[in-house]
């Protein structure tokens, strides 16, 4: 029922050109909003989902607009111009070429985006936009320079789409763009974007390649911006470079934030504000922009999540959370899930081997020629006073730091050259001492990010929500729910991670790590800050994990716990291994006792 209503609402605008006999409202306002909404949506992919600020989208927009301008225009319309090349090809072919070119430009911008963030990336986007602008401005023989290009209206099968009927061309594309973005951002791709935005380290530890997803995000975003640009060129049938200035990018950033990020509604609202406000405010004449500025500040104060955030807030008051049926079905399906997959057959009895591993920070030697072996299917404790190099060891194992020297082997294979996300794929999972949950996602979604590598749907089937990807999404959701049941968090499955208690968050991190089906699990102080009862729960969990055949490296300050669950313990002090052996041997080792006596961190009972 709901779907039918939405469907009718979606189709309604098609009737408008018949009903409203005024091109100002249809072509002047509505078509403009549609074109701008596409651009805002493309910007949202970068700003809202990836979390980088782009002030260069005018550049992408310009490439799309100019591709269509150059490829479809004619000599007659541009008499007295410097242009010499008029291929005069059909609009949609030109549009397609424009989108490809823009996507390529997005690909190029993706690379700086890998290394930069915040204001540093923002300035690169500005530079990028200005370079595109300069090239368009200067290559007169191709673009007619500042004088701009006049275009003829689109003609499809003899029908000209120059007035109100332009809506028939742009509106279907808006629906398509929004549908694709909706599907994309709700899929594992969208979760990967969100994960990268919140914590690159945690994302890569879940097996997400930052480079891959970020560059794709820029390519998709740029492509959509190019599409919007292509349509823009037809709005006034004229393009000139001065449109695509720095200010244009800034205006769209404003539109996006005012509308509200990560929201299709927000994108459309933001674009509408941009198109309608100037006309609406003409009553204020020269004071118009002052009032516009004040309204922006007001929106910011009272609707920090933009207009769409405000709308959602009201909507939330009238709608319930997840309905019961959904959860019941989920529980039902989850009961049939087998959690621990068969571990990959490994004849090697050694899970991890560290040889002479060394790490320096400036002059400080954090880890000094460490040799350590974690046997397959055991729990290996790693202890030591604060600053002894335990967490650094974990970071070396997962590839977050490049070691200064030494070797790391996983089941007999050197993994020293592999990056963090590849190591995650090879079977290393971890939790974090400082919690690194994706705080705006629900507990369930967090676990689903952990299962990132079990997704196989390709981009196309995701964008159009094909049955294959629907089914896969459902299966993963079920299994993620089963993981939550495993750690005892099924009741808070739909709670956002930022609203969890400390103990719940620790358990969720373990669930997320386990969900990636690892052969080696690194637990970095899983009991820190927990109560005795909660620690007991974790002990039981660790034993269950061990039973399933997963090797565990446990870093902990709670000696009771380490001694209770470990098969073997390594002690570090100032980055050097000072002792190794069974829990019993360690407790009686005089060197260990001396090392610990200096601190009040921990005491043996």
């Amino acid at each position: 029922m709901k779907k039918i209503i939405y469907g009718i609402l979606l189709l309604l605008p098609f009737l408008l050109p018949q009903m409203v006999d005024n091109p100002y409202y249809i072509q002047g306002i509505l078509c403009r909003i549609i074109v701008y909404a596409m651009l805002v949506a493309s910007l949202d992919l970068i700003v809202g989902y990836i979390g980088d600020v782009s002030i260069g989208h005018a550049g992408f927009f310009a490439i799309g607009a100019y591709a269509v301008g150059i490829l479809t225009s004619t000599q007659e319309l541009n008499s007295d111009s410097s242009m010499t090349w008029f291929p005069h090809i059909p609009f949609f072919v030109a549009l397609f070429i424009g989108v490809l070119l823009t996507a390529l430009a997005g690909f190029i911008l993706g690379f700086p985006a890998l290394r930069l963030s915040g204001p540093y990336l923002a300035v690169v986007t500005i530079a990028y936009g200005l370079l595109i602008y300069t090239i368009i401005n200067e290559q007169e023989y191709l673009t007619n320079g500042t004088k701009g290009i006049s275009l003829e209206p689109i003609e499809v099968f003899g029908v000209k789409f120059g007035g109100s009927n332009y809506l028939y061309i742009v509106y279907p594309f808006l629906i398509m763009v929004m549908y694709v973005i909706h599907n994309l951002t709700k899929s594992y791709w969208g979760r990967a974007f969100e994960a990268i935005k919140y914590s690159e380290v945690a994302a890569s530890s879940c097996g997400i390649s930052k480079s891959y997803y970020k560059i794709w995000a820029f390519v998709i975003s740029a492509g959509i911006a190019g599409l919007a640009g292509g349509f823009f060129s037809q709005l006034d049938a004229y393009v000139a470079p001065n449109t695509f200035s720095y200010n244009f990018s800034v205006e769209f950033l404003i539109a996006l934030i005012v509308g509200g990020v990560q929201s299709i509604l927000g994108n459309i609202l933001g674009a509408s504000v941009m198109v309608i406000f100037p006309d609406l405010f003409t009553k204020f004449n020269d004071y118009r922009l002052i009032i516009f500025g004040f309204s922006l500040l007001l929106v910011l104060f009272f609707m920090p999540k933009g207009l769409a955030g405000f709308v959602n807030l009201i909507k939330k008051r009238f709608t319930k959370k997840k309905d019961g049926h959904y959860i019941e079905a989920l529980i039902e399906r989850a009961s049939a899930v087998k959690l621990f997959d068969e571990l990959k057959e490994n004849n090697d009895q050694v899970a991890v081997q560290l040889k002479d591993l060394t790490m320096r920070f400036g002059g400080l030697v954090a880890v000094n020629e460490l040799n350590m072996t974690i046997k397959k299917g055991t729990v290996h404790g790693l202890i030591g006073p604060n600053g002894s190099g335990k967490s650094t060891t974990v970071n070396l194992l997962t590839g977050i730091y490049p070691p200064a020297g030494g070797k790391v082997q996983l089941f007999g294979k050197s993994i020293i050259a592999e990056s963090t996300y590849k190591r995650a794929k090879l079977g290393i999972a971890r939790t974090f001492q400082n919690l690194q949950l994706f705080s705006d996602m629900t507990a369930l979604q967090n676990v689903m990010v952990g299962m990132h590598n079990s997704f196989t749907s390709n981009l196309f089937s995701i964008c159009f929500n094909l049955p294959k990807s629907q089914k896969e999404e459902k299966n993963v959701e079920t299994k993620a729910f089963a993981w939550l049941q495993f750690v005892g968090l099924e009741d808070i499955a739909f709670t956002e991670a930022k609203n969890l208690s400390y103990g719940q968050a620790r358990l969720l991190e373990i669930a997320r790590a386990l969900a990636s089906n690892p052969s080696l699990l690194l637990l970095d102080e899983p009991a820190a800050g927990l109560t005795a009862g909660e620690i007991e729960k974790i002990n039981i969990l660790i034993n269950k994990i061990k039973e399933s055949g997963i090797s565990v490296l446990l870093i902990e300050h709670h000696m009771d716990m380490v001694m209770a669950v470990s098969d073997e313990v390594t002690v570090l002090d100032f980055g050097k291994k000072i002792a190794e052996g069974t829990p019993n041997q360690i407790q009686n080792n005089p060197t260990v006792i001396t090392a610990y006596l200096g601190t009040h961190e921990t005491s043996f009972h």
Partner: protein
Amino acid sequence: MEQFIQLLISGIAQGMIYSLVAFGYNITFSTSRSFNFSHGNFLMLGGVVGLIFFINNQVPFLAMVLAVVFVGLIMGLILYKTSIEPSLKSKSNYAWILATLAFGIILKNIVEVFWSTDDFRFDSPLGNAPIRIMGIGVLPQEILIIIVAICIVVAVESFKKYTIFGKAIVAVSEDKHTASLMGINQQFVILFSFLLSSVIACLAGVLVAPITMVGATMGTVLGVKAYAVSIIGGLESGYGVLLGGLIIGLSEAFTARYISTGYKDAPGFLILILVLLFLPSGIFGKKIFKKV
């Protein structure tokens, strides 16, 4: 050779103008991870106030400077209270961008509506005639700009290094949490940095006015270029700003002369992208190891 030196000096002077503006971004970024996206409009306001007092009403130069400082303080305070403080509280990554942009729109249009949309001449108190040394012309104002830019950077950097309050600023920039544990009032440090930044912007407005003329749009382009300058040098380094200014200023002058006037801005931005590809925190930026 003579032309080369002439270009060199023009480039340096233009670069120092950028540095002067860029420095305002650095000061607030290091304390609050945000800056005033409408910094150029603050510069414009300084120029306009200076013009009204000094040129139109013949107020003595020093009194005019005081008035400009006062306006800078007031505007800094209003900016902080209306835009920065609420944005930082809202924990949104973009709120401060929107807030400062909105503030700039208001400021610029107030000046346009209540003052003028035109550009006006601002006679340098040092005279408008260029000083000529072996055929090379330098405006006295250009020399002043170079000196003042260097002095302000050195002064603020030494202030940060050698005074207790300056050290507090550095502490907040490095670790907010620990700094507040040490009893440093973080809010005040941020407020102070915004006041300082807007006062410097307003003074810069007066300083560059004889070169750029005074008008409601005088700060727009400067603001963007200065942003690039502050990033090239590294947002957290004061001296980096001077280097960044030189890079952009000189690349513009020499490109315009020897490559093409149309592509004047391009090499500067290419250098920017290249620098950031290899040094993601700018030339003097610190490399940060993320602690996990």
